[in-house]
């Protein structure tokens, strides 16, 4: 079939490919940039039913879809979009939930432009189908109904699993295990569950009500979430194994803030993005003094970094009334943040200082930040990550008057748990060494996944790791080999289908 013929052929929904290709990408309604710069309400408002159906019609329902492979957990994207096109959001959400536990979260925070939407076939000529927004639509539709479909829960297996950390990896793993019939307890160090989704990502990007709803959903499957429990302190991993847990899944994230080690970093007014965001999000200090925890914002804030964390810190400071300057050592193309966040940040009036790197922070007599000294950078040869390495331009230093600096240059792995568990093998960055296919660690019965294994990554990868962990723990507790032998796997499939 020639391309022309293919384009004229009617697809299942009654539209031809050509007709589908003609529909422009449906913009998502958003709060006006000026307005939202002053509040913490969600920026993107979500599709209406009509908008979602219109956008769903843009999907070509490709015979060999690329998007599924582009999704780290392999969601059957054409299938859920088809259900939306057919006006059946219930079927769409059911399809999504076969693969992802938290579509309302992923639809909002996944870097779609680097995943499913990057490889979308429509995107070759036009804008790709807005897969993330459609995912969000289906999830929000379900939440509005107030009745979430509950999956079947297998008969009790009489075994107990402990999960460390209630971020996306831990919560996903716990949910999967509960469905398989295990008794599951999540131990969370903070006073609220959700991990980065709760303490890191701001309300205006991911409303906390959604995160808590997802956590409650997992609780409704029988999972118990114990907050205020620091594994490595309140109880160790060995204590868990000795006290009734048959297996343990470690998903304690990559929560250690990294500083630049430049002069002046301990001055008053210099914060890690983790501190700034934890105060704002977890402690709700944007509602101070109604909430007790204070936050220092200042008139002019410098945020150092170019990832999602930097964008979140910058946009939070902006909403608290500051004039915000983002300092990033590479160029815009190399910024690791989601495209949408960079776009939103610029729209809201964050000023970007690209190819710029801080060299020192200068304080006043009272120990408060007064200025930040920066140096111009230029791009040199590509480094290990394939991005061109920024090199300082000698003699180009200059100072910007500033009263708050937020360091957002990355996070490392928190040593509380691992130091208390010397049996766990770590790599040179302090991440737990775990088998990629199974999540198995160097300790018998102990599995790990998410940021603690990979280093700071994404929500969807953490969820994927949680799923893998659950599957392996199930096999481990049944006495099966963690990796099914190829033939054995086939036999197992036959057995279950027979």
């Amino acid at each position, binding site marked *: 079939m020639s391309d022309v013929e293919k384009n004229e052929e009617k697809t299942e929904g009654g539209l031809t490919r050509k007709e589908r290709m003609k529909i422009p990408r449906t913009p998502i309604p958003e709060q006006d940039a000026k307005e939202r710069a002053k509040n913490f309400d969600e920026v993107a408002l979500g599709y209406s039913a009509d908008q979602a159906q219109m956008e769903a019609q843009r999907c070509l329902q490709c015979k060999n879809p690329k998007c599924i492979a582009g999704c780290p957990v392999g969601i059957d994207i054409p299938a859920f979009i088809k259900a939306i096109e057919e006006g059946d959001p219930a079927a769409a959400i059911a399809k999504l939930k076969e693969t992802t536990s938290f579509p309302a979260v992923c639809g909002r925070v996944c870097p779609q432009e680097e995943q499913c939407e990057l490889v979308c076939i429509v995107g070759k000529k036009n804008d790709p189908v807005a897969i993330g927004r459609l995912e969000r639509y289906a999830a929000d539709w379900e939440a509005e109904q107030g009745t979430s479909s509950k999956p079947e829960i297998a008969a009790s297996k009489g075994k107990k699993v402990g999960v460390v950390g209630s971020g996306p990896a831990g919560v996903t793993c716990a949910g999967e295990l509960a469905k398989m019939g295990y008794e599951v307890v999540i131990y969370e*160090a*903070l*006073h609220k569950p959700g991990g980065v989704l709760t*303490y890191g990502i701001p309300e205006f990007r991911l409303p906390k009500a959604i995160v808590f709803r997802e956590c409650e959903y997992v609780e409704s499957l029988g999972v118990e979430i114990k*907050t*205020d*429990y*620091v594994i490595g*302190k*309140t*109880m160790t991993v060995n204590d868990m194994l000795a006290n009734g847990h048959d297996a343990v899944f470690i998903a304690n994230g990559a*929560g*250690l*803030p990294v*500083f630049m*080690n430049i002069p002046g*970093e*301990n001055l*008053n*007014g210099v*914060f*890690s993005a*983790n*501190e700034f965001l*934890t*105060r704002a999000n977890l*402690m*709700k200090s944007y509602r*101070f*003094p*109604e*909430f*007790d*925890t*204070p*936050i*220092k914002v200042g008139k002019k804030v410098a945020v150092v970094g170019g990832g999602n964390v930097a964008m979140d810190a910058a946009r939070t400071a902006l909403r608290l009334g500051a004039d915000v300057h983002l300092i990033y050592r590479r160029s815009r193309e190399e910024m690791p943040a989601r495209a949408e966040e960079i776009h939103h940040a610029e729209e809201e009036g964050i000023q970007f200082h690209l190819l710029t790197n801080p060299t020192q922070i200068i304080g006043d007599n*009272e*120990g408060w930040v007064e200025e930040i000294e920066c140096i111009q950078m230029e791009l040199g040869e590509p480094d290990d990550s394939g991005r061109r390495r920024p090199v300082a331009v000698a003699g180009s230093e200059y100072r910007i008057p500033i009263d708050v600096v937020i360091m957002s240059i990355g996070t490392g792995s*928190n*040593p*509380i748990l691992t130091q208390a568990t010397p049996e766990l093998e770590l790599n040179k960055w302090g991440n737990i060494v775990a088998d990629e296919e199974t999540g198995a660690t160097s300790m018998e019965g102990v599995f790990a996944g998410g940021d603690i294994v990979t280093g700071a990554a994404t929500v969807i990868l953490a969820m994927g790791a949680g799923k893998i962990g659950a599957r392996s723990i199930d096999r481990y507790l049944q006495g099966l080999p963690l990796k099914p032998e190829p033939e054995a796997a086939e036999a197992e499939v036959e057995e279950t289908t027979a």
Partner: protein
Amino acid sequence: MYKILEKEDYSDDTYMQVIEAPAVAQSCQAGQFVILRLHEEGERIPLTIADFDREKGTITIVVQAVGKTTRELQTYGKGDSIANFIGPLGEPSEIEKVGTVICAGGGVGVAPIFPIARELKNAGNKVISIVAARTESLLLWEDKMREVSDEVIVTTDDGTCGRQCLVTDPLKEMCEAGGIDLVYAIGPAIMMKFCCKTTEPFGVKTIVSLNSIMVDGTGMCGACRVSVGGETKFVCVDGPEFDGHEVDFDLLMSRQRQYLEQEKIAYDYYLECRGDKACLT
């Protein structure tokens, strides 16, 4: 929720509470601390474990009311509950038999030094304690300290009880006399700073327990960072105890003042609003 089983007021500004927290009591050791949060709008504040009972599953805290949260906690009595109580946090004290140890506690700093003195004594050390306060009404746990010390010296700034002098006077005299192998000093930053200044010329190792501002207390935010021996350390995970001769106390004290303005707003708002529930609506 964590229930308050006992409450005792020591003065208008200082009080003791025994809190039911079995998991914390099970695993805590001398020198560690907890973080608590009173209610949904509350702040997380660190308090040192002043005593614990593994069998009863309780933790004892001794608090000086200095601002919003510690004043509000003061209004909580027996039978009330605290929303969150997390611990034990920080590294335990390193207890060894070294010989003669001075335990100098200033103000409410006496309470956190108590379990350390007890452990030091159990390890076979000779323990000389200095129990210091501004004035007699602020002196606390003298009796408890006597139980675990070979000798107790009481000092007040105004002479209302014991010797009229600063905690550093007897400390200096004993260092001069010699035979001191280790000093523990816990109290306000300024007191710890001067204790360290006093012992330094004698080369007597001095351990302090730092009270930097904290948020999570688990190494996740860096709010608690201090400079020790020229290196940045997180008090909540690397401490709270450090070699006092290496600590940059001026930086610690400067960082403690970081939120003075907001702390006043919070306190005024509390007096205006939380004291009067009608204001909340």
